[in-house]
Each structure stands twice: as C-alpha cells, then as structure tokens.
C-alpha cells in the first residue's frame, strides 16, 4: 500500500490517554481499538482471531506463569503484571497487548494498524 492510499484518522489528544486507556473508533465500518500501553500507542481491529469477538472490549489480565524449582517440583503459578494481555470477552483468547500476538498460538496475530502522533494528537493509519 502506498503512502497516498493510507487514511489518517484522528483518534484524539494524546493527553487524554493515560496508561491503559483505550478508545474504539469506527473507520468506514471497521472498528479499531487504540490503546496506550507503556507510553506508546497500539491499534487493533476489534475482531478476535478466534470467532470474531470484540477483543478490543476485553479486559487486561497479566500473563500467567508456572513456577518450578530446580528439582522439577511445581511451586504454583504467578501473575506477571509486566506482561499485560488483552483478553477477548467471548472465550478469553489472550493476546500480548504490545504485539497483538495470540499467546497460546504464537504467530497468530490480531490485525494491527499503525499509529502516529502529531501536534499532540494520536492518529491511526488505516
């Protein structure tokens, strides 16, 4: 796709987004969720790779990790809050919110859109 064919859609002032805030916008019938995560913006189509559920309306859950000791014994499970997942509300498929990658099936990704910041506003390129 050439530069000229891309549409820049204004999402809103950067200052209105705190870490974790999101906005879902409609671009010609396509819903796009724009999230501020760790200071940067990511944008995904509001359509889950599983059954097409509204993934951008899902909640954030930390990545869950199994803890083993050196001898191979299980010490339980812990939540790693440094790795937030976006969780689809339909059947809880989980995506790494930074990359849009499905965590149970690496390589499967949400449809992502580029974001840009200009003059204090955030834009999504569709």
């Amino acid at each position, binding site marked *: 796709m050439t530069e000229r064919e891309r549409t820049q859609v204004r999402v809103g002032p950067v200052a209105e987004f705190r870490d974790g805030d999101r906005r879902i916008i409609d671009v010609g019938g396509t819903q796009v969720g724009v999230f501020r995560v760790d200071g940067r913006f990511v944008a995904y189509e509001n359509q889950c790779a599983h059954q097409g559920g509204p993934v951008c*309306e899902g909640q954030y859950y930390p990545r869950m990790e199994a803890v083993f000791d050196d001898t191979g014994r299980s010490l339980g499970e812990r939540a790693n809050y440094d790795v937030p997942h976006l969780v689809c509300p339909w059947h809880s498929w989980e995506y790494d919110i930074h990359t849009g990658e499905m965590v149970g099936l690496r390589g499967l990704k949400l449809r992502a859109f580029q974001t840009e910041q200009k003059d204090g506003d955030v834009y999504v390129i569709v």
Partner: protein
Amino acid sequence: MSPKQRPDFYDRSSVPTGNLLANARKQALARGLYDFPIIDVDAHHREDTASWQGLIPYIEDDAIRMFAEDVTRRESAAGMMGLEIRWHSNSGRIVRPGVNGFADSLSDDGRDPLVRRTIWAMDEMAIDYTILFPTAMLFLGLHPQPQVEAGLARAYSKWLTREILPQDERIKTMLYLPFNDPQAALRIVEDFSDDPAVVGFMVTSVRYKPVHSNEFAPIYAALQERNMPLAFHAAYNWNDQSLSLLNKFISAHALGFTTSNMVHLTNMLMNGIPERFPRLKLLWVESGLAWLPFMMQRLDNEYLMRTAEAPALTKLPSDYMRDMWYSSQPMERSAKQSVMEATFDIMDAERTLLYSSDYPHWDFDAPSTIYDLPFLTEDAKRRILGGNALDLFGFKAESSATPPDDDATVTATEHGEPVAPPIGP
C-alpha cells in the same frame, strides 16, 4: 510488579462496552444468515434466585416446597440444587451481558427477563428458534435425594411451559427427565409431550444409573411412540473418582464433557437399545465432534473381536451412531482442515449434525463457526444450521430472527463491576 505497583493500567482494564454480540450480528448480516432458518438445539439460561422462586409454587411435595422457599429466601437457588465449583468464567475473563454479575440494559417489554435476554441473543446471532435448557439443572442428577430431583424437574416443567414459553413461540424446550426416578420421568413425558413448546426430553449425563437398565424401557417406549427425541446433555462431575484426579477445570471440563456421554452411548449400543427401540431418536449434546471418530473406531474395532459379547447388535456400533444426532458445540477447530473433514465424513454430518450455540456459556459457538467451514456446500451448511433440526424435531419454522438495532443492549461495566443494576426482578 504487583497490581498495586501498576494500579493505573490494570484499573483501566474494564471499560464500558457496547453491545457484546454486535460482531455476531455483523457476521450474520455479511453471510446472509438472516435469510434461512437457524435452529439452536442447545442454549442456556442462568436462572437467578428470583426465577427459581417463581417455580417454587409448582413444587407438589410440601416438604420440598417448604425447604425450597426457605433456602431461596435466605440463601440462593444453588442451595437447593447443590453447588458446583464455578471456574467457568476463567477468573473473570469471560464477559456476558446479563449474567455472571454483569449488567445489561435491555428494554422492558413486560416479558420475563429470561425471555427478553434469550430473544435478544437469538436476534443478534440470527437464530430463529432455540431449545433452552436450565444451567443449574445440568448437575441435578447428582442430587442425593431423588425426590428432590423429581420434584424440581416437575415444577420446572410446569413453570416453564405455563409461564415462560407461552411468552414467545421461538423458544422451545427439551424438558429435564429425572432419571433417578424412572416413574417420575415417565410421568413428565406423559404429561408434557403434548405441549407445543416441548420438542423432546433431556437427560443430563452426569448421573450414576446405567441407561440400559430395564427400568428405563417404558420411557424409551413412550418416547418412541410419540416420535420425540431424547437428548443426553454432557457435563462433568469433578468429584467423579476418575475426574477428581484432575487438578484443573480445563482438564475436568475437557474430559468430563466427553466421557459423560461416552459412557451412556456405549451402554446404549452394547445393550442393543437401538435394536429394542429402533425408532427412538437419540441426540448427544455438548460433547463437540472430535470424540465421534474416536468412539466409532474404538467400538467397531472391539466389536469385531468380541461380537459374541454384544449379541443384540446386527451391525457395527458406528452404523448405529450414524443413525443418531449430535449437537455441534464446542466444535473443535484447532486441527488442520482434513481432520475436520474426516470427522464430518465419518459421522455423516450433513444428516446427523445439529448446530448449537450453548450461549451464554463460556465456550459458546456463533453460527459462523458452521457457515465458514470451507468444505461444506451451501446446502449442507443450511442443513446443519437448521434443516436437520427442523426434520428431527418436526416443527415448522414460521418466525424469523431480525437484526436488532445497533445499541439494543449495553454491557455496562466498569472496573469489573456493573454500573447499572441488572434487569429483572
């Protein structure tokens, strides 16, 4: 980093959301699913305590009714039916408007909230008719008091057919049969089979009476005579001796929802129930599809070696299985396409498979899961989504789902808490 160290981010996790089934409606519109009949043979209602209070007056036994009145007033409906451990919502990850403590804002048209919520979900998914089953009764077969199982089943049948189903003819039922009391089960068949909304009967598969036992023969005969299907609805009993070895819900659910039906199906086959009741229509619900090639191969293989041990059979177990029906959900779609194709082929899915959503449960399937299968013809898709069910249940599709307005409902939640009171009494 704990959530306390990162409060802002995770506090913004739950946002007010729009219509959570809007994407299902978009799928339905894009695929033309509103243009032909779709029958959902297994959807559920999660009865709140208020619903159960509605059916209590129909409990005939004084002692059970007094117990039920008290326990629902002071505790909850679960107190009379027995509690299961509720891992289903995956620690809150799954969101459904109007259930699990999440609010919705469905408009009040004077009908019972159960009817309004059911019709709303049907319209969003382009489902014309639904066969509704009560979630809380899936485990009632484990109740230690057979008289309570039978009393509640009968009260539910009366309440549902008198108060709920007359409110919308698009909602049908296969009524719960209390199989721990075969005579009470037979009475339900006799007393309710003429009701136009009753299209069959349901046995919950989590129970411990063998279904080939002679005490069930009168029930099978009565159903065969009436030409009404008998469905077996899978579930899991985490306290079952085998399943109790499993330390996770994912494990108990994945296995239990198949083994509970496998056991009953095997008993039915090896004891020749299809030979003794050749016109009895059997439907197996909510075990998905992947168990079917396994069962067909496994049982056929052993039958060929041990034909003498199953003398009631006149053909292969898999041949009988292709004379039964199966609901589609939760349809396993993770293998490569050829595996699914082989499954559809071995079970003769174009004839035996019936779409089910299981909505609003955590692993529900939208109709697009069937419609998007690339190896099915348009005719096969329509048969599985509706035609096979219309043939099996023998009713005519006279109404149709219509796509509702965009904002027909809103899941009003913030920070995981409902922001508006849930509808309903």
